[in-house]
């Protein structure tokens, strides 16, 4: 479930008084620490979500996953470097049978650990093992209140299962954290979705408007709602928040396409987040591998400490030395650090330019065009390309360039 971690980002942004910015200076001098370790333990997944932001060529990385022992070493090394929050994500992490071992080790090391799951593969036996092992919470993705939309957007029959899993999570005394990715097909059901969450006893609900990376970028014209729909959804969310108060915390993650300033992506490149992917690549953000001329470190080579502190990739966009105009002299620089490097490159072809979401960016018209295109009935009518191994193989081998031609890298 990989649109899920934006909640983590939003809370970190709110709650951590981000460490001093470090102006492109290596972390061994500035002492940034990877507080948040996200372990994308597998790219295999039984679901086929249209909005998944795993790389479209993920299939390449399903054969060379890290072993249990390698993951345990990752956990140990990251903890030594200051990591506290651990997200176990994917793909669907439960497709691995060693999550229990990973959880036990995480507890021993003092992590606050979170399993981010679609719920498929969560059984009574496994959840009991997680509880005994010390897993702190489980974040479940939900898609809609209707069986029809749930099953359509995930291209699976998982609606009833999700409700069962939600009850199981609650019964085991876990806080219930629901993540709902919002798109054209469910945005008009926000009220009902929130009511369902309340009924299930959710403690935290994240309404995550789709961000356009990976499969969701390929399906942008199919998924993007109208501005009016988003405003309406936000209004309903605010009203609901008033009503439930502190009992259920609701996060509404605003879609950046409809803002005129970009998000402070990952709270800054190499500032607090460290992602280790299924095959051991160490990344500052999920989609960093789309960037050109970058070689990302792998835990099989020089280890995590080198990756975080000294690798050229992690130091490349730390701080603000890399910036161009208009970001370089922008008075608002500290708010967003120029936005997302991956979005800048994917859309404009220049990884060092301002995120096109910014209205001051010379490429801002690309966002305006994308919004216009998403209203075009002809483009809307193109079928969704679901996240399947078959489609991924086609992208990975270059056999298909369908709907990725306009981007400067394979999303």
């Amino acid at each position: 479930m990989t649109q899920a971690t934006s909640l983590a980002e939003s809370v970190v942004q709110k709650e951590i008084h981000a460490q001093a910015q470090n102006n492109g200076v290596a972390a061994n001098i500035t002492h940034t620490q990877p507080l948040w370790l996200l372990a994308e333990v597998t790219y295999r997944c039984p679901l086929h979500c249209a909005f998944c932001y795993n790389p479209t060529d993920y299939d390449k990385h399903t054969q060379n996953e890290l072993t249990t022992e390698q993951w345990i070493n990752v956990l140990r090394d990251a903890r030594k470097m200051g990591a506290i929050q651990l997200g176990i994500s994917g793909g669907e992490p439960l497709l691995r049978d060693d999550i229990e071992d990973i959880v036990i080790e995480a507890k021993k090391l003092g992590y606050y650990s979170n399993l981010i799951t679609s719920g498929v593969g969560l059984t009574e036996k496994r959840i009991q093992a997680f509880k005994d092992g010390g897993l702190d919470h489980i974040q479940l993705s939900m898609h809609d209140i209707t069986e029809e939309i749930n099953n359509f957007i995930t291209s699976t029959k998982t609606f009833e299962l999700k409700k069962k899993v939600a009850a199981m999570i609650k019964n085991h005394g876990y806080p219930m954290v629901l993540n709902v990715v919002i798109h054209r097909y469910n945005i008009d059901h926000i009220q009902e979705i929130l009511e369902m969450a309340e009924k299930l006893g959710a403690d935290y609900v994240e309404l995550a408007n789709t961000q356009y990376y990976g499969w969701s970028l390929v399906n942008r014209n199919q998924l993007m709602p109208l501005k009016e729909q988003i405003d309406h959804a936000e209004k309903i969310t605010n009203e609901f928040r008033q009503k439930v108060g502190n009992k259920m915390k609701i996060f509404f993650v605003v879609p950046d396409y409809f803002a005129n300033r970009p998000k402070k992506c990952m709270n800054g490149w190499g500032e607090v987040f460290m992602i280790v992917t299924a095959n051991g690549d160490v990344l500052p953000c999920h989609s960093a591998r789309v960037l050109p001329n970058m070689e990302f470190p792998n835990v099989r080579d020089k280890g995590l400490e080198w990756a975080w502190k000294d690798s050229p990739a992690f130091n490349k966009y730390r701080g603000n030395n890399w910036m161009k105009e208009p970001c370089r002299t922008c008075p608002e620089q500290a708010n967003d650090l120029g936005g997302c490097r991956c979005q800048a490159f994917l859309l404009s072809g220049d990884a060092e330019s301002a995120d096109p979401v910014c209205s001051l960016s010379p490429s801002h018209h690309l966002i305006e065009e994308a919004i216009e295109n998403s209203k075009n009935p002809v483009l809307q009518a193109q079928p969704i390309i679901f996240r399947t191994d078959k489609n991924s193989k086609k992208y990975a081998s270059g056999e298909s360039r369908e709907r990725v031609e306009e981007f400067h890298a394979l999303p």
Partner: protein
Amino acid sequence: MENNIQHSDIYAIALHHRFQWEEAQQSYVILFPEGMVKLHGGAGEVLKRVDGKATVGEIVAELKAAFPDADDIENDIIGMFDLAYGKAWLRKI
């Protein structure tokens, strides 16, 4: 002060929240689903005494004894309770 903290109140760390010392950060932190807060020294001193048994008044007295040179820490301590309760890091017993 919004939450009207009383000396007789008793608080505990909220459910699903964890309070711990972090060696790498040299600070106390509160961890909860999808978030964390790094506490500065004074806040950590207050929260480490919150155990679901001690009253606010007892914690104030203890801290006054522990830091006799600090002026008027009572207000700061009550302010910390107010903030922590308002943020739902604490629950009232």
